[in-house]
């Protein structure tokens, strides 16, 4: 591991700030320079990037976007970097799959799957936020980047830092899935396993971030980092022919992704890139860690923190930073929240795989499972159109499905044995 304080940059804002105007407190509106800082000094409210929308409107059009390469940076005026992105330039523009077979199974007229399980390079939506956070970190002069992670973020920070030549520290709960651990170690990152759950990892990282001069993507770089999630929503709208989906179902860990997809619909509406039609955003959690959906179902504006216990480890945040704002978005758009058990998560993974050939991680099982519930209950009407946001790849969480998807039929390389197997129980074989 490298030295402790070797990479402290000036932390100063660059003189050129692109289309960004300032960092602005979401609570009191106070403005701050575009540095590596994430909360307001006066009320600890979260800072968010404020943009010069008038200038963006004069620059960005459907035609301009369509002429650019198919990656998330085709919307770069709405992403918080001052100049050209330097990290993760190939990230995004994942498929929006028209999921007719899954639609029939769930009983809805039209269904799409936004498939970030194949996002580049580390197979989750986190590549979006990391490419923004690291590009901005480079602009601000950082040489060391870090994160607190439930796994996918660690993979993405490790990979993108490696490609950018940045020193990297990732902090994860020590008992994560092997796929996510190996997927961080392989890039040469310093992987620190914390003997505790994610909320404890997060607390420690807040303390480390306060002591060391690193760019913690989801601590002091969080205002920039979180904005990267908007690109998932921008792509959905463009891929739907420049329209906003009636219903969007999003899984929630911190709740940030849900709020940023909402913001992407607001921004495209404001800029005239889509017709400002009505939309509803629904939140999905695992029952074993459902502080936000529990509050939503109870009609509360605030959540009670919980100690997580679920196979959906990537969503296991008991103290969700954006829980309050996610609740607000669901309320404002008329969306609902719901949660599913571990068995329902596995069913959701299998349903998506069998219907659409997409193997999602546990968080995807949560999204599909909750969509199924919301459609069955009529909260998402059967005669409507919905988009399910799939955020990560099933190959990273195979432990969750091991022992639940049947077994192989092992025979010797012999035609007779194969035919004997076929005749033995055709029905059983076909079902396996």
């Amino acid at each position, binding site marked *: 591991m490298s030295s402790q304080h070797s990479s402290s940059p000036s932390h100063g804002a660059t003189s050129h700030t692109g289309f960004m105007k300032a960092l602005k407190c979401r609570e009191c509106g106070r403005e701050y320079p575009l540095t590596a800082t994430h909360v307001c000094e006066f009320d*600890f409210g979260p800072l968010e990037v404020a943009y010069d929308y008038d200038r963006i409107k004069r620059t960005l059009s459907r035609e301009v976007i369509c002429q650019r390469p198919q990656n998330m940076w085709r919307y770069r005026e709405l992403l918080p970097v001052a100049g050209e992105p330097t990290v993760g330039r190939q990230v995004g523009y994942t498929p929006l799959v028209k999921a007719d077979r899954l639609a029939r199974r769930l009983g809805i007229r039209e269904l799409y799957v936004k498939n970030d399980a194949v996002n580049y390079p580390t197979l989750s939506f986190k590549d979006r936020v990391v490419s923004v956070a690291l590009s901005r970190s480079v602009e601000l002069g950082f040489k060391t980047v870090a994160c607190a992670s439930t796994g996918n973020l660690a993979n993405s920070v490790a990979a993108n830092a490696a490609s950018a030549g940045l020193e990297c520290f990732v902090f994860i709960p020590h008992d994560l899935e092997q796929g996510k651990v190996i997927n961080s170690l392989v890039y040469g990152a310093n992987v620190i396993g914390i003997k505790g759950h994610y909320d404890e990892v*997060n607390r420690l990282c807040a303390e480390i971030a306060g002591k060391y001069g690193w760019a913690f993507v989801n601590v002091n770089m969080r205002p920039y980092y979180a904005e990267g999630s908007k690109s998932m929503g921008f792509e959905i709208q463009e891929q739907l022919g420049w329209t906003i989906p009636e219903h969007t179902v999003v899984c929630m860990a911190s709740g940030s992704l849900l709020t940023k997809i909402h913001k992407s619909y607001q921004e495209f509406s404001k800029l005239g890139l889509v017709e400002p039609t009505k939309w509803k955003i629904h939140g999905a959690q695992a029952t074993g860690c459902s502080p936000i959906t529990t509050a939503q179902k109870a009609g509360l504006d*605030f959540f009670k923190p919980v100690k997580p216990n679920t196979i959906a480890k990537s969503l296991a945040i008991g*103290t969700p*930073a954006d829980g*309050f704002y996610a609740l607000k978005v669901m309320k404002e758009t008329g969306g609902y929240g719901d949660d599913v058990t571990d068995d329902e998560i596995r069913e959701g993974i299998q349903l998506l795989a069998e219907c659409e050939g997409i193997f999602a991680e546990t968080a995807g099982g949560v999204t599909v499972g909750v969509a199924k519930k919301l459609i069955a209950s009529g909260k998402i009407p059967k005669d409507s159109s919905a988009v399910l946001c799939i955020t990560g790849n099933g190959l990273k969480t195979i432990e969750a499905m091991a022992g639940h998807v049947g077994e192989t039929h092992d025979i010797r390389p012999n035609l007779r044995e194969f035919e004997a197997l076929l005749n033995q129980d055709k029905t059983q074989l076909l079902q396996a």
Partner: protein
Amino acid sequence: MPTSVRISLPPTLRRFCDNHESVEVAAGTVGDAIEALHARFNGIRERLLDEAGNIRGSVLVFVNQEDIRFLDQSRTPLKPGDELSIIPAFAGG
């Protein structure tokens, strides 16, 4: 009964606390500790508490690494040598 405890401060607060990374105060509960901090560095109370005197939703307080929302909130009692951490809520995810 007031007792001596150490409070770790986030960077956001340090400039209002003579740039200390941590300070020692005498307090019997978490609420008392915040008041003691305010008595020493004027203006801290308003940053940490809302108009009703409750700890803001944007502020997390830990006693020996445990979130006080799982304990007795600001009434959480303190004993000698306890360590408090004040951390902004908007991180992670």
